[in-house]
């Protein structure tokens, strides 16, 4: 972990997105993102699991030519993990930059994925970076770092997924420009699956149609619907010759629920589109 946060890695160019990631815009999110960047505004991406939030950030980092520092937030992630810490190396104590400080120093994009999962003190750390101050206070160093114009803060957030206890506070939410990424339209999602996996367009379309029906069960038994990512997995398995039944059940049924009746219902929907 510490190694990954070592700023020297950036010197090696590890955080640059060198090849254009495949991304088909759902709407005006690319233009909105660019405008926010130009105006030094932070962005909050909202949307269900697997709807393309991370891919959008990667795409924009490539497009804007900025290094991308992605942090997958979790229960134990604290402000120190973002800013940096002292570590003991032999007889000496050495400071190691956290990803947030790395992004600030290098004018990169920091992407805090599922930010509400992290500890509350992280919000305290990021708040000064979201407003006009665009600064980062590192108490342990006794220093304030001012972010360059190229620096950008992006967080992602899945409103339907987190519990009430982990809801993002209004005071935080209202510091961001919000881009909502829902499920792509049928045509768009078909194109995504078709181009990402190489399956026939007809197969891709049937996968998307079935997924859209299954998504109707969200909050009716399912916590999450079939993500575009799962559809891509399904298409990939089909393309690699995995039997249809196995490919579909392992990506579009089993990951969604453990409930036997619900699984049977999903299988029946899949049977409407595929000869299982």
């Amino acid at each position: 972990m510490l190694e990954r946060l070592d700023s020297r890695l950036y010197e090696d160019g590890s955080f640059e997105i060198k090849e254009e990631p495949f991304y088909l815009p759902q709407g005006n999110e690319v233009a909105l993102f660019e405008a926010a960047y130009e105006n030094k505004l932070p962005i909050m991406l909202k949307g269900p699991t697997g709807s393309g939030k991370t891919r959008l950030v990667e795409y924009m980092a490539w497009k804007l030519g900025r290094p991308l520092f992605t942090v997958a937030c979790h229960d134990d992630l604290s402000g120190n993990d973002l800013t940096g810490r002292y570590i003991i190396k032999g007889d000496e104590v050495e400071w190691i930059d956290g990803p947030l400080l790395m992004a600030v120093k290098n004018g990169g994009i920091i992407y805090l994925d599922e930010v509400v999962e992290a500890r509350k003190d992280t919000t305290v750390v990021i708040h000064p970076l979201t407003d006009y101050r665009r600064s980062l206070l590192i108490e342990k160093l006794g220093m304030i770092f001012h972010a360059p114009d190229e620096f950008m803060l992006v967080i992602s957030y899945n409103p339907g997924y987190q519990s009430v206890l982990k809801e993002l506070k209004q005071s935080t939410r209202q510091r961001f420009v919000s881009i909502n990424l829902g499920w792509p339209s049928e045509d768009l999602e078909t194109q995504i699956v078709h181009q990402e996996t190489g399956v026939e367009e007809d197969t891709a379309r049937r996968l998307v149609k079935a997924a859209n029906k299954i998504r109707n069960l969200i909050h009716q038994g399912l916590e999450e619907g079939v993500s575009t990512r799962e559809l891509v997995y399904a298409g990939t398995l089909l393309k690699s010759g995995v039997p249809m039944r196995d490919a579909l059940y392992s990506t579009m049924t089993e990951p969604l629920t453990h409930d036997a009746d619900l699984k049977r219902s999903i299988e029946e929907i899949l049977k409407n589109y595929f000869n299982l």
Partner: protein
Amino acid sequence: MVRNSIKRALGERKIKKLLRGHYEGEVLEKLVSELYPLLDRVGYDGLEQVAGLSTQVARYSGGTAVRLLEKSPGLIDTLLEYGDKELVMKVYGLCRQVARDTIFAAARLLDESPEIIDRLLKHGDKEMVKEVYGLSGRVAKYNWRTAVRLLGMSPELIDRVGYEGLEKVAGLSSQVAKDHSDVAVRLLEMSPELVDRVGYEGLEKVAGLSSQVAKAHREIAVRLLEMSPELIDRAGYEGVERIASISTQVAKYSWRTAVSVLGMSPEFIDRVGYEGLEEVAAFCSQIAKKDSFVAARLLAMSPELVNRVSNDCLEKIADLCRQVNEDDGFVAAKLLDECPDFIVELLKYGDKEFVTGVYGLSCQIAEDYNWRTAVRLLNECPDLFKQLHKYGDKGLVNDVYALCTQVAEYSGSTAVSLLEVSSDLIDRVGYDGFEKVAAHAAELAKIGEGRATSFVRGESSEYAAFIDTLTQGLALKKVKPVLANYLNALLGYRIEIVEARGASTDGARIYLPERVQEFREEDRNFTMYKVMATHEEAHLEYGSFDFELMRVQGVASRLRAKYGCEGT
């Protein structure tokens, strides 16, 4: 002149002395006068042999003895043309040895001796002829048949192995003939061919082996000798030894089976090797303990069957035939004869294990119930399987048979009935239902065979109730949660499913029948529910009942044109 008279009187007196006791009166006088001329040619000791033979024959047949004596002058003349007095003595000496056991063979041998000598002379000189007769005489001490056969075959043997070889063969035959004359004779007969193929040493080995086998049974030894050239060609001497050992083992139970094993051994070795032969032989030995007929017959069929089915299966077939054979040999033989074709038919529906199972069940039924039912069931199998095949694949046929076999553990007659009604039952209640009927029948059979059998045949009251429970179909309440989620997914909102007599919708609810019994299989009944639910849902999803003014716009225009007036 006087001297001649005296000499003749003395000679005739000596001859009379030889013949007295068996002949008298005119016959004696006549024989004496006929034999007298021979006295000078073969001497008194020669005449003693002639008379001795005559005396031996006379004990059993006076007429034959007289005829023999009457022919002797002419015969001796002939013999003397081929040789000397010594030859005459040896010919008669051999005949006397043979006559100890059989006067007729001895008389025939005497008659044929000119011809035999004639043949021998083509292969050697007069001395050798005498040697051969001497050799036969020595063999005759052990067994006359062997000696006679040796004499008969000696020209051929001399031709192939020379006189020395003949002596060796004679020695071997004598050894064998001590205990088993038949074997010795056959050894002699086979010896030219065997010597050709395996040399004298090989012949010696075969002779030794035959003697050994003959202790178990001489027929087997004879057969072994007969087959030895072919067997040696195919399997070598060691192979012959192994085959002989197997046959000897089988002979402990049945010499007929052992002979069959021997006869079929080349074919077995070609098809399944020694190990296969050993296995089949051991298995047939077990059967032969109880029934040599079945064992021999099965052995005859084995080469054809052994590649198609397992040894276990052969055992079942044999056991069934044995049971049938106890009552009806004809049916048993027919059963065995039909085996190959029947097995081909069975193999269409399963593997070797399945065929073993079919015969195993019949065997069990024959044992627990009666063999006629077992045979009938076996004969009905192909038709039964064809019917079952309509309802599924080979697996179904196998499963049905396996279930019936399980039931047979408790009751043979119940199993038979179950098998007979299996296709009808599957037609009515499916395989799952059939499985339940079988399980229930097995339970009943533990209590009483009659009750179980009448249940399976549909003769008991509990049968109707049981079948009813199997054909109740699929209840809506069982699939309601699945259908509710399914409809929710299609429609995008939750809709209530309500039990009704048929399928319909009022827009707020979907009505479905309480139970679907269209099919035997639950899956197909569920599909029926799914089709009905989807049909009703589609009305709502695609707006069959949505009221749109635009839809009736054309109708309204036509109505206005036809009936309306301006302003209305």
